[in-house]
């Protein structure tokens, strides 16, 4: 059961999952379009099978994994996670997947490795947001984590949501979920995972470095230049005449698990 598995990690289980329809019909996936309704509406032509993920870089066993092989080797477990978007809204999402750390341990991380870089898929013929788009992000979408963040047991490679294979709009067939960071760190439709000794470039940071940092840890005290991060709108609750809001918590409420990763760092500078 999802809440039990989650609470075993030491954080409150009393979270109400966001309605499934909201999870699958309100999200950002710029490869399909800039509106939050675009991913669900415009991802019908995307083919998440067959799928390979290349694992390479500073590892003992570089390998191209078929998705089925990944599933067979690492299986999946339920994780009920809060999701805090950098746009100051939030959801609670029941994911299924496996720990990124398990994959990295299987690959054998070499000494000297410091970061993990992720690359998403480029398929303009299936992803309308990648066609033209004078003003869009650069493709492929890229993301990165520090190695210790990547190895943290909360860091998940999700292959399912709400008990079914990930729908195209949510990052099929495999995506990253890092619950203490803003949602844009959760790169979707991953094709490559590279272990490296250099801090990798990340898409939103390239787009607007003063607005989106490499770390992107959820932090109510560091505002986005154009809006406050002190509170968040809870999607799926509230009414037309009053949004449901709650205060945002440091590290999205996962401080107990992850604060030690950032000891001694200035979170205002490394936002």
């Amino acid at each position: 059961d999802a809440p039990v598995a989650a609470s075993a990690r030491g954080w409150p289980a009393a979270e109400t999952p966001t309605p499934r329809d909201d999870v699958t019909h309100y999200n950002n996936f710029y490869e399909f379009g800039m509106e939050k309704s675009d991913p669900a509406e415009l991802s019908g032509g995307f083919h998440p099978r067959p799928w390979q993920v290349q694992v390479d870089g500073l590892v003992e066993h570089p390998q191209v994994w078929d998705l089925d092989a990944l599933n067979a080797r690492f299986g999946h477990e339920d994780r009920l996670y809060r999701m805090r978007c950098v746009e100051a809204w939030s959801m609670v999402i029941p994911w299924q997947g496996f720990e990124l750390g398990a994959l990295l341990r299987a690959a054998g991380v070499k000494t000297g490795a410091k970061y993990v870089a992720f690359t998403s898929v480029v398929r303009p013929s299936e992803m309308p947001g990648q066609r033209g788009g004078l003003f869009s992000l650069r493709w492929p979408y890229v993301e990165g984590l520090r190695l210790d963040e990547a190895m943290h047991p909360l860091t998940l490679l999700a292959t399912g949501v709400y008990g079914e294979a990930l729908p195209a709009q949510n990052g099929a067939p495999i995506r990253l979920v890092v619950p203490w960071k803003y949602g844009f760190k959760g790169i979707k439709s991953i094709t490559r995972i590279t272990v490296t000794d250099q801090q990798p470039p990340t898409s939103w940071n390239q787009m607007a470095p003063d607005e989106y940092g490499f770390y992107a840890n959820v932090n109510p005290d560091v505002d986005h230049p154009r809006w406050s991060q002190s509170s968040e709108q809870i999607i799926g609750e509230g009414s037309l005449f009053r949004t449901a809001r709650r205060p945002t918590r440091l590290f999205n409420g996962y401080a107990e698990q992850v604060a030690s990763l950032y000891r001694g760092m200035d979170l205002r500078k490394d936002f």
Partner: protein
Amino acid sequence: MALPSSGPRRRSRFSPLTRQVFLYLFCLIPAVSDIAQGMANTLGPNPVSVCLHDFGRWAFRFLLISLAVSPLKRFVGLDVMVYRRPLGLLAFSYAALHVVFYVGVARHFDVHVLWKDFTSRPFLTFGLLTFLILLALALTSTRRAIIALGRRWAKLHKLVYVAMILASVHYAIAFKTWHTEPFIYAAIAAVLLSLRLVPKAGKRTV
């Protein structure tokens, strides 16, 4: 049917005031529709955001349309001057709904957050200034105000050009990335504003 500019004008069965009120009410349909759908919960996962952004876009559209009225008369010969006031009031009404939804529904009248929003976030400062101008113009749109202000009225209402520019910036920088739609709106605004710079025949240009 004769064009308004050529030949004798057909008298409408309705008085100008009736036609103005009718136009105003008719153009409120998008607002009524959004609110009705929002209450019926058919606007998707974030109905507040849909309403907020729709109202903002309608405010901008009516601002553009109201600014097209005088060029239409001057360059096309189509006289719809009688509708300029209700069109301007529609721009104001949608802007007011936009602001009320932001301040009240989205931000819960949180004075602390709002103060920071309006003083330190340029896109919101631009938006607020636009609204304050539209408010001033709406408040002085009565016949009584026009008479009381005399020549100053025309001068005051030239602020609508400033509002147009502020609104263009507000819309353009409101997103995480550049979107196409704000630039289309801004381009139309630029055309409408530059038409004002065309010298009038038979008048000295200053």
